[in-house]
């Protein structure tokens, strides 16, 4: 067993095994396949009788080091690293649902996830129902015999609503459903999957876990706590029989992840094992800088509204305080009354980058209604909490005064 290190130390040492020649960083094993001395030895690995690597689409030593660390950070279990956050979500859902099944999901999802559920998966006979995750009664009421999972984001991107996850877990579990949580925005630093009651935790590691915007990646962490041996999941029966609480991971690894092929690249896994070491330090700064900027914007005469769960009067403040220990993440949104003024502010920013990403060390902004949510109807945008004047800010780790100065001079432009 691993020594019970604290979170900040696990970020640095978790899952690390002695490297060649005493190397202390995770070696990049840039090899597509792995050779065995004998046919018998390779047969044993293929049959699952022995642990070992076969082919990088199925597993790779660099990626495995990352997987070990990420699983430890979520309070235990087992992890599968994927090519992107979307690959992690797709693999997870395809492992659980079959044609004719339903997904119950939060209505305030990241746009890519919303479109995967509503459009792409609909082509395969899977129906998604979207509910307001803050309205627990409507969540309960939307569950039926075909529902196979409940999917929510810890903090909706970009709506910044904060669902009460332990209560959603209760509702899901009473109905025999797994709670799947996309924790990209909060990271395990704000709360781990165990605390939130999640059965499966997903991250787009492209964001805070990488920390520098250098590569795309995702991860699925199966906490090994959900009982798949029920009438809702007859297709899990052979996997449950052999792998018990890890039936989900076995089904994902042996079928969907292997066959879909959205594997992590070893070099990206290396960058992630490097980046994640500073997660606690960075998140602390992201959180404190976001609070400083949110307070500054609140007082600015040209700002019509600000949403940041760290503000006392923000709708998500109470739940966020209880779940995330007084830390509220690095995302905030604000409005200046119109799309036109939003564009003027973005165009006038000097340090903050205008791009479609979050979780970088740099401060990032975007106008979601005209970019990442441009394809959605006004109704869908309203569901996702995207109004025409909304600017999303992913607050970076720069000197807080420089961030304030940048927004201050940009707001002067309107």
């Amino acid at each position, binding site marked *: 067993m691993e020594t019970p290190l604290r979170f900040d130390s696990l970020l640095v040492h978790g899952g690390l095994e002695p490297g060649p020649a005493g190397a202390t960083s995770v070696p990049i094993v840039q090899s597509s396949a792995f050779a065995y001395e004998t046919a018998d030895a390779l047969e044993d*690995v293929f049959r699952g009788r022995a642990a070992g690597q*076969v082919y990088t689409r199925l597993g790779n030593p660099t990626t495995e080091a990352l*997987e070990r660390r990420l699983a430890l950070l979520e309070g235990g279990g*087992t992890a599968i690293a994927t090519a992107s956050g979307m690959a992690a979500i797709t693999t997870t859902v395809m492992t659980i649902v079959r044609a004719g099944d339903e997904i119950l999901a939060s209505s305030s999802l990241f746009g890519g996830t919303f479109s995967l559920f509503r459009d792409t998966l609909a082509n395969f006979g899977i129906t998604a129902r979207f509910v307001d995750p803050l309205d627990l009664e409507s969540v309960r009421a939307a569950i039926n015999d075909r529902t196979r999972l409940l999917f929510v984001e810890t903090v909706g991107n970009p709506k910044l609503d904060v669902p009460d996850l332990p209560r959603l877990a209760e509702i899901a579990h009473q109905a025999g459903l797994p709670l799947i949580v996309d924790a990209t925005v909060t990271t395990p630093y704000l709360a781990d999957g165990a605390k939130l009651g999640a059965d499966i935790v997903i991250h787009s590691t492209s964001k805070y876990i990488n920390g520098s915007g250098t590569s795309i990646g995702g991860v699925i962490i199966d906490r090994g706590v959900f009982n798949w041996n029920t009438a809702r999941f007859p297709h899990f029966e052979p996997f449950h029989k*052999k*792998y018990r609480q890890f039936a989900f991971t076995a089904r994902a*690894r042996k079928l969907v992840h*292997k066959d879909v092929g959205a594997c992590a690249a070893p070099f990206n896994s290396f960058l992630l094992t490097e980046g994640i070491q500073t997660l606690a330090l960075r998140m602390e700064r992201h959180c404190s800088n976001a609070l400083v900027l949110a307070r500054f914007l609140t007082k600015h005469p040209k700002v019509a509204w600000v949403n940041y769960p760290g503000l006392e009067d923000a709708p998500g403040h109470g739940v966020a305080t209880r779940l995330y220990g007084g830390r509220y993440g690095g995302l905030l949104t604000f409005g200046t009354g119109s799309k036109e003024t939003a564009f003027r502010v973005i165009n006038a920013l000097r340090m903050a980058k205008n791009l479609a990403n979050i979780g970088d060390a740099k401060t990032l902004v975007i106008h979601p209604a005209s970019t990442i949510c441009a394809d959605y109807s006004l109704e869908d945008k309203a569901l996702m909490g995207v109004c025409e004047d909304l600017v999303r800010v992913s607050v970076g780790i720069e000197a807080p005064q420089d961030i304030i100065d940048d927004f201050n001079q940009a707001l002067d432009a309107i």
Partner: protein
Amino acid sequence: MNITINGKETTLAENPARTVESLLEELDVAQRQYVTVELSGEILERDAFGNTPVQDGDALEFLYFMGGGR
């Protein structure tokens, strides 16, 4: 004592206190927290590893999720 592990005959020193759990340690089986153990054709519950004795003639299979075992 003779047992079969993953289809191979294996001779171990006599040890009446040997359980499935202690055997996993004794053989330094990789990824012990995830491995599934099949004892004479039956999957063994994880909780039972510590109190299931390993006896002469037993056939054990260790099973991993394919490709890296996890």
